[in-house]
């Protein structure tokens, strides 16, 4: 099975903070309100939470991608 991780488009992101609110298991916030992402692959039970955060981003700056990437 393909492993997934969360990635940010840093240019699109403007630090609204919804992702950190919806997916605190893997997304924190820095002191300026931008997401701090745990880059480890997601376990299957976390994938639905990640998808919810991705869908909620008003800037479409969050995505799920295969494998582990910056």
């Amino acid at each position, binding site marked *: 099975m393909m492993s997934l991780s969360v990635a*940010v*488009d*840093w*240019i*699109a*992101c*403007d*630090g609204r903070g919804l992702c950190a609110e919806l997916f605190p298991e893997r997304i924190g916030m*820095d*002191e*300026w*309100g*931008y997401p*701090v992402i745990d880059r480890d692959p997601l376990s299957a039970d976390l994938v639905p939470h990640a998808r919810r955060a991705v869908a909620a981003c008003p800037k479409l700056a969050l995505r799920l991608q295969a494998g582990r990437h*910056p």
Partner: protein
Amino acid sequence: MTASLVLQERLLAADIGSGRFRDLGVHVGLHGPLPTTGASTLITQVQASGLTGRGGAAFPMARKLTAVAAGAAPVVVANGAEGEPASSKDRILLSYAPHLVLDGLQLACRATGASVAYVYVHEGPLVAQMQALVTVRASTGVDAVPVTVASAPARFLSGQDSAVVARLNGGPALPTAVPPPVYLRGVGRRPTLVQNVETLAHLALLARHGASWFRSQGTDSEPGTMLCTVGGAVGAPGVLEVPIGLVLGEVIERAGAPAAGVGALLVGGYHGAWLPPGGALDLPLSVEGLRPLGATPGAGVVIALPAGACGLVETARAVSYLAEQSARQCGPCLNGLPAMAQTLSRLAGRDRSRGLEERLAALTATVERRGACHHPDGTVRLVRSALRVFAGEVAAHRGGVCTATDLRPVLPVPTSRVGA
């Protein structure tokens, strides 16, 4: 053995300072005409030569050529927009040996099947100079592929490959989000080879003399020569051509006997790293040789800090410049770099408030790997190396003392007031 010094120079051969190689006839007289080598032979030659990109990343050129050649209707860009204030090798090369670059550009077009080519430089006198040369070559039928001269403001990130593509697509010269990489989708959404001008000049000579000639200098894993810009405490600061792997002490020596005592060395420019005094002089200027110290040759900047200068003051000034040069597109860079610059400036200014080093360490960790381009990571590398190499000076500053005896600025920083 001293006679070999002259023979070691390839790009900067002969009396290049005279400027006479700007003349196409004089160039052909020295180097011979543009080789007629076919595409697959060219790629094989580059592969066998081990030529890597000289813009800083040292990526194998053969792999880029192959990737771009596999796409439809590719574009090739000769990138001469060196943003590094401490580097002048691309400007010198374009000013004194421009036809090597333009030959290399044509060869790269042939190797990849490109019929669209650009020379991309900073705004300034080079634009008109290159335009004149491109016109001469077009009128004499030397160039099979027409070349367009393009330019961007002289900012630190203007030469970053996605910024180059953004500019050539009609936008501002700012990095864009990856993926996809420019070799898959670049100018006009076509696969695009963005290659540093020095790399193309090496290609021009490699195609003439072959891979084993190319490998006769440098190291087995990093063959050839490289241009470097040497500054600071040396007798004759400027651009030199050296075999890759030459020890740093010899690089400094060739830039004139050190003017005074040499302290730390900055290698790889403002996204590079400080190396401690003494031991660094025995290290080879190569990716392999510098890796153990977390440094790379980058685009060949080597600056010898005078023994009496303050490494913290110098680094603080460079980091303030880097913060100002942020493209201001990514939150962690936009906020984190000014915060790093400010904290470092307080440390350099002997501010004795608590927690400044801890604050810097936290900021570097926060900013690292959180941007669309390498600007945050490069800045983090410089700051971390400064805290490591100048640890003694940090301790002195925490006690309210700066041990420097000469605070004249060493690292060049343009005074730009350009906004976002």
